[in-house]
C-alpha cells in the first residue's frame, strides 16, 4: 500500500548559482533596461510634484556625490506646478488639452474611415492603376510631413481668406492638414489585414443580397476590428504628440495644442518653466492612458494577429 507519491519522489531544487546562470541574468538585464527606460518618466513625475522648477535647483548644495541622488525624491510634495498651469491666463492649459483631444479624437476617426475605405478598394476591387497606386501611396509616405511645411503654410494662409475656419491659426486648419498625414501607413496596415479575410465571405454576402457598402461596414470592418483599433490608437497617439506642423499652424500660445504649448514653456532660454512643463506632461498623459486602457486588449490581438494561425 503506497501513497500517491513514491517515497523517492523528490522535487530537486535548482542551486542558486545554477539559477543565476540559466535564468537570473536575464532578470538582471531586464531590470536594468526597465530602470533605463523609466527613468525620464520618473524624473518628470517627481519634478511635477516637487513644486519647484528644477530638481537640481531644489537640491541643497551640501549634498554632493551619491547623496545628491536623494534629490530625485523631493523632500516636499506640492501641487504648485499644477495649480499655476491650470489657473494662469498666460498658459491656457485647458484650451490646449481641449484642442488636442478634439483633433486627435475626430481626426483619428476620420482618417481611419478614409484609410479603411482606401484599403478596402486596394484589397477587394480590381482596377487599373491598383499596383502603381499602392506603390505611390507607400512612396509618398516615405517623405516626412515636415518637408511640406512651407507649402502647408502658404496654402493655409490663402485658405484663410476664403474659409477662415480652415485657415492658418485655426484648429480646423490643423485638422485639415493632419487628415492627409498617416493615410499611407494606415492604408497599408489595413489592406494587409483585409487581405486575410477570405473573399468567399464577401461573395457569399453578395449572393445573400448585401451591397458593397454593407459588406464594407458590417462585414469587413466588423471582422477587422482589432486592426482598426490599433490604427486608431497609433494615429491618436501620433496626433497627440505632433509638434512641428502644429507649431507652424497654431503658433499662438492662447490657442494651440498641448505639444506646442508645453514646448513654449521651455522655448525661451531665459525663462524655462521645467516644473510647469512636467506638470503639463503628466496631465496630458491622462487622455492617452484612458484611450490605451480602452483599446489595450485589441492592441495585443491586433498587433500580433497573423503571426499565429487561427
Amino acid at each position, binding site marked *: 500500500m503506497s501513497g500517491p507519491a513514491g517515497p523517492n519522489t523528490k522535487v530537486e531544487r535548482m542551486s542558486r548559482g545554477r539559477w543565476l546562470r540559466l535564468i537570473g541574468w536575464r532578470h538582471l538585464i531586464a531590470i536594468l533596461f526597465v530602470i533605463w527606460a523609466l527613468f525620464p518618466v520618473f524624473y518628470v513625475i517627481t519634478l511635477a510634484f516637487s513644486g519647484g522648477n528644477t530638481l537640481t535647483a531644489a537640491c541643497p548644495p551640501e549634498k554632493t556625490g551619491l547623496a545628491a541622488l536623494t534629490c530625485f525624491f523631493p523632500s516636499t510634495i506640492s501641487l504648485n506646478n499644477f495649480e499655476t498651469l491650470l489657473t494662469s491666463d498666460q498658459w491656457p492649459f485647458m484650451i490646449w488639452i481641449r484642442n488636442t483631444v478634439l483633433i486627435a479624437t475626430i481626426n483619428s476617426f476620420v482618417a481611419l474611415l478614409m484609410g479603411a475605405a482606401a484599403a478596402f478598394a486596394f484589397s477587394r476591387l480590381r482596377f487599373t492603376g491598383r499596383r502603381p497606386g499602392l506603390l505611390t501611396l507607400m512612396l509618398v509616405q516615405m517623405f516626412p510631413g515636415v518637408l511640406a511645411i512651407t507649402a502647408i503654410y502658404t496654402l493655409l494662409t490663402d485658405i484663410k481668406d476664403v474659409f477662415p475656419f480652415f485657415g492658418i491659426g485655426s484648429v480646423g486648419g490643423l485638422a485639415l492638414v493632419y487628415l492627409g498625414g498617416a493615410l499611407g501607413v494606415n492604408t497599408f496596415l489595413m489592406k494587409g489585414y483585409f487581405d486575410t479575410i477570405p473573399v*468567399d465571405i464577401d461573395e457569399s454576402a*453578395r*449572393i445573400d*443580397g448585401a451591397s458593397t457598402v454593407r459588406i464594407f461596414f458590417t462585414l469587413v470592418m466588423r*471582422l477587422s476590428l482589432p486592426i482598426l483599433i490599433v490604427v486608431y490608437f497609433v494615429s491618436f497617439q501620433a496626433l497627440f504628440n505632433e509638434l512641428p506642423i502644429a507649431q507652424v499652424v497654431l503658433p499662438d500660445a492662447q490657442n494651440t495644442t498641448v505639444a506646442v504649448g508645453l514646448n513654449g514653456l521651455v522655448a525661451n532660454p531665459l525663462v524655462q518653466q521645467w516644473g510647469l512643463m512636467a506638470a503639463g506632461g503628466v496631465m496630458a498623459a491622462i487622455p492617452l492612458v484612458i484611450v490605451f486602457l480602452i483599446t489595450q486588449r485589441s492592441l495585443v490581438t491586433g498587433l500580433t494577429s497573423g503571426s499565429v494561425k487561427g
Partner: protein
Amino acid sequence: MATVELENINKLYDNGFHAVKDLSIEVQDGEFLVLVGPSGCGKSTALRMVAGLEDISNGELRIGGRRVNETEPQGRDIAMVFQSYALYPHLSVADNIGYGLKLRKVPKDEMKARINRAAEMLELTHLLDRRPKQLSGGQRQRVAMGRAIVRDPKVFLMDEPLSNLDAKLRVQMRSEISSVVRSLNTTTMYVTHDQTEAMTMGDRMAVMKAGELQQLGTPGECYDTPRNIFVAQFVGSPPMNLVLAKVVEGPTGLGLQVAGEVLSLPDAVVAERPSLRTFVDRDVALGVRSEDMEDGSLSSAPSDRRIKGQVALTEALGSQVVVHFTFPGRPVVTEDTKLVAKETGAAEQISLRPDRGVKWVASFAPRSKVKMGDEIEIGVDLERAHLFDPETSEAIRG
C-alpha cells in the same frame, strides 16, 4: 425553381487566358447537374459566372428564361455553397442562416419559422446559438447548406462543398446533400473534381477539360459510352484500361492485334461502328473497363478473346479481387491520358517494369486464385469494348 441555360458562354481573362470556351448547357427545372473535371478545367469559373461573381465575356445566360448576364448576384435569386463554407464568423448559426432573409426584410416571425425549418431539416436546431468557430467541419458544412436552402432560391450553386471534409464525412454528407436537394426539388449546379461524387449525386454530369465541355449526359451514359479518351479515363475508378491495337482483317471478320495476338471483334461491335473498316491496318485505342475482364480459368471467353499477362499485384477486397497485370502491349499516351494520370496520382507512381508494356487493372470474382507473379490468361468481354481513334482521341462510332 427554374431552368438554367448557358448558351455559348465564354470567359476570357485580361491576360488572354481562355478559361471557358463556348460552354452550352441546359439545366432542366429541378435537375441536379454536376460539373466535373480536373483542376483548372474552368468548372468553377463557369459556376461563378452563373452566380454573377464573374463577368461573362460573351454568350448568354438565362435563369428561368430571363437573360441575367448583366444582373447582379443578389438579383439572380440563387444561393451558393462555397468550398470554404464562407460563414460569417461573428454571427451565430441562426444569424448566419437568416442573413439573407434579414437583408431581404423578411418579417421577423416568418424569418424565425424559416430558420427553424431549415435547421430542423439539417439537424442544426441544438446548435443555433453557437458561433461557426465552435462547430465541426460537417456542422459548418450543414450551416452553409442551411443558409442556401432557407432562402428558397430558384437555383442552388455548389462549389466543391465537400472538399474540406474528411473521407468518411464526405460520403455521409454526399448522401445528405443529395436527399435534401431532391426533397426540395430545386435546380442545382454542383461543381466537383471528384468523379465519384459526380457519378453518385448527379442526374446528369457535364465533364469538362481545359474550358471545354467534353460530354454531357447521365452518369451511366458517360461511363458506358464515353465520347473520347479523356471522358473514358476520367469517369470511373479505376480509369479505363487502354492499349494500342492494330485493326486487322481476318478470316472471321475484323480483329485487333494486341501484343502479337489477334482478338476477334464481335459482329455486334463491328456492326455498330461501320467506320471501323477505314481503320484496317491502322492503330486504334482499345479500352476495357476493369469489370469487363475475368480470370481466364473462370472465364468462358473463347481463346481469341483472351490476353496473356503477368500479375504484378493483387488486392483482395472481399467482394472482388483487383488484379494489376502487365502484358507486352503498346501504351496509349496522349495529352488526355497524361492529364488523367496526373489527376489520379498515377503519374507519380514508379513503374516497376517499364519493359513489361502496359499495366492494366482488372477486377476478378473473389473465387479467383491468382497470385503475384503468376502468368495468367484474362478473358476480355469484347462485346463491351471501347474503341477510340488515337489521333483525335474521339470514340469510333457510326
